[in-house]
């Protein structure tokens, strides 16, 4: 009975909506094509318009090499710290009950709501060597933050901060703490429980967060632009280098730099895609449900019980 109802219902939707469905598909794919595919394909075309040699030259000058090196350095410094913080913060938010927990949870999202330029400004106000809150003391101690890679790393850590936390929290909520409790009852210490139980079950969430944070760190422009002073060959990352090439009318050079960044982005995209598939394979195991859907299997069970009656 249920089956026939489903069948006719589905056919009804299909019959009534075939034109609408194709229309919707065209609109959706057309929008994506115009906004995403054509523009991104175009950078590759533009970069090699004047020949491969020109593009190659633009991204192999000493300045470009330094920019690539500095971009990678920013990722290498900021991402490990962000990852450790992200896992710890997610554990604190999900596993602990304390006053101000909601506030902590909300505060972690702040970097999403703050303009990168404002992030840069805030660091200048704190660490600027002339009139920053700590800048003068640090300068007296011989530490320069603004206009150096130190400040750029701080800016990168600021913008990358929420990604790992946000990816790990739902996973932690989903796996619950039964296994951790069991391990601890069986005599495992907190660290042992963490390495043996918690970390293995959240590893794909962590990885996904790391990939997102890396993408952001590689491409950050606004915050780093304010903090770095954009000294070429010294505090210029790849995105800043691209901007300067463009401003100095080396347009094909700018496109070549864009290709380098776009290739990095596509690698990131590929990694995201791969992780998601792994994640889904794991989730498709015994417990399928993500948070709100936990209700659905229960409904199915009651349905099955009612049907024979």
């Amino acid at each position, binding site marked *: 009975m249920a089956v026939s109802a*489903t069948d006719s*219902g589905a056919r009804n*939707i299909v019959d*009534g*909506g075939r034109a609408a469905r194709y229309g919707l*598909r065209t*609109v*959706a*794919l057309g929008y*994506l094509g115009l*906004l*995403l595919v*054509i*523009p*991104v394909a*175009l*950078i590759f075309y533009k970069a090699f318009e004047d020949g491969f040699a020109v593009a190659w030259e633009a991204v192999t000058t000493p300045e470009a090499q330094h920019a690539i090196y500095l971009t990678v350095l920013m990722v290498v410094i900021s991402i490990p710290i962000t990852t450790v913080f992200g896992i*710890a913060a997610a554990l604190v938010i999900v*596993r602990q009950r*304390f006053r101000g927990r909601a506030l*902590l949870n909300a*505060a*972690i999202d*702040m*970097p*999403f*709501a703050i*303009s990168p*330029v*404002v*992030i*840069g*400004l*805030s*660091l200048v*106000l*704190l660490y600027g060597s002339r009139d920053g*809150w700590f800048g003068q003391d640090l300068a007296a101690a011989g530490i320069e933050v603004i206009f150096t890679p130190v400040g750029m790393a701080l800016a990168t*850590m600021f913008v990358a*901060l929420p990604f790992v936390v946000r990816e790990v929290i739902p996973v932690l909520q989903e796996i619950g703490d039964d296994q951790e*409790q069991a391990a601890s009852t069986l*005599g*495992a*210490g907190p*660290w*042992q429980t963490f390495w043996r139980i918690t970390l293995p079950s959240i590893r794909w969430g962590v990885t996904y967060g790391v990939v997102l944070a890396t*993408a952001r760190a590689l*491409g*950050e*422009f*606004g915050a780093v632009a304010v903090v770095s002073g954009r000294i070429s060959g010294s505090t210029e990352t790849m995105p800043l280098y*691209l*901007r300067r090439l*463009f401003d100095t009318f080396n347009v094909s050079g700018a496109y070549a730099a*864009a290709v380098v*960044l776009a290739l990095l*982005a*596509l690698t990131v995209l590929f990694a*995201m895609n791969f992780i998601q598939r792994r994640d889904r394979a794991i989730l498709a195991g015994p417990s399928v449900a*993500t948070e709100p859907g936990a209700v659905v299997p229960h409904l199915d069970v009651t349905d099955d019980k009612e049907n024979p009656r």
Partner: protein
Amino acid sequence: MSQGAVATAKAPPRPGHRLGLGGPGLTRGLVVGYLSLMVLLPVAAVAATSLEGGIGAFWDAVSAPQAVAALKLTVISSLIVVAINVVFGTAIAWVLVRDQFPGKRFVNSLVDLPFALPTIVAGLVLLALYGETGILGIEGISFTRVGVVMALLFVTLPFVIRSVQPVLLELDAEMEEAAASLGARPLTIFRRIVLPNLAPAIVAGAALAFARSVGEFGSLVLISGNIPFETEVSSVYIFGQIESGNTESAAAVSVVLLAISVGMLFLINLLGRRMLRHGS
């Protein structure tokens, strides 16, 4: 390792106790400390600096005609972008979940591209396409407000889609089928059954897209041309103020910008929670 196991085994079995004290407290302290140092303190510095010259100076900085024009453009274009995102984002999420066509998985992973692509590249890309010497040769989009909206649409594309998709996946098609078998038309089904279920997710995605639009900088510096009173958004205005040494004025406008995006996030969170409660 075995030593640790022995030592803990000797202790009286009180697992709940260990979870609440010592180590966890330290972790919490470190987390709060890091967040305070990295985020809260810098934001406090911006707020304090904005008021350094008193309320009068703050107001002067914020109500300067160029600052007002920039704020207006920022908010209006963000609202336009959010509206477009809500419609197309929901449609794309729908097609990606309910429709079947070859290459669907490829299209699905493509949606994340704006998250992965550096914003400056996004700006360059749009300039290549719609700029004066652009391939499409559509003149008058670069260095115009339309260009601003285009850039914002590019960088905010994934928010609504990625927020709606999981909810749509969970949504049981049986309800829609039941409605259809009772004679409801597709549009009615969408309006009465699908939309109410998706609304909280749409709103949540829209809030993130709005917050991102309000603060966006990297994708706009190239395509907008940064013409004061014309295509200069607030983040670009703040950047200019910093460059010319007006940190107090930059801080004042920053505070307003921050208040807009945080306020919007808060408001929409509230709305979303009410809708969730209403729906269940």
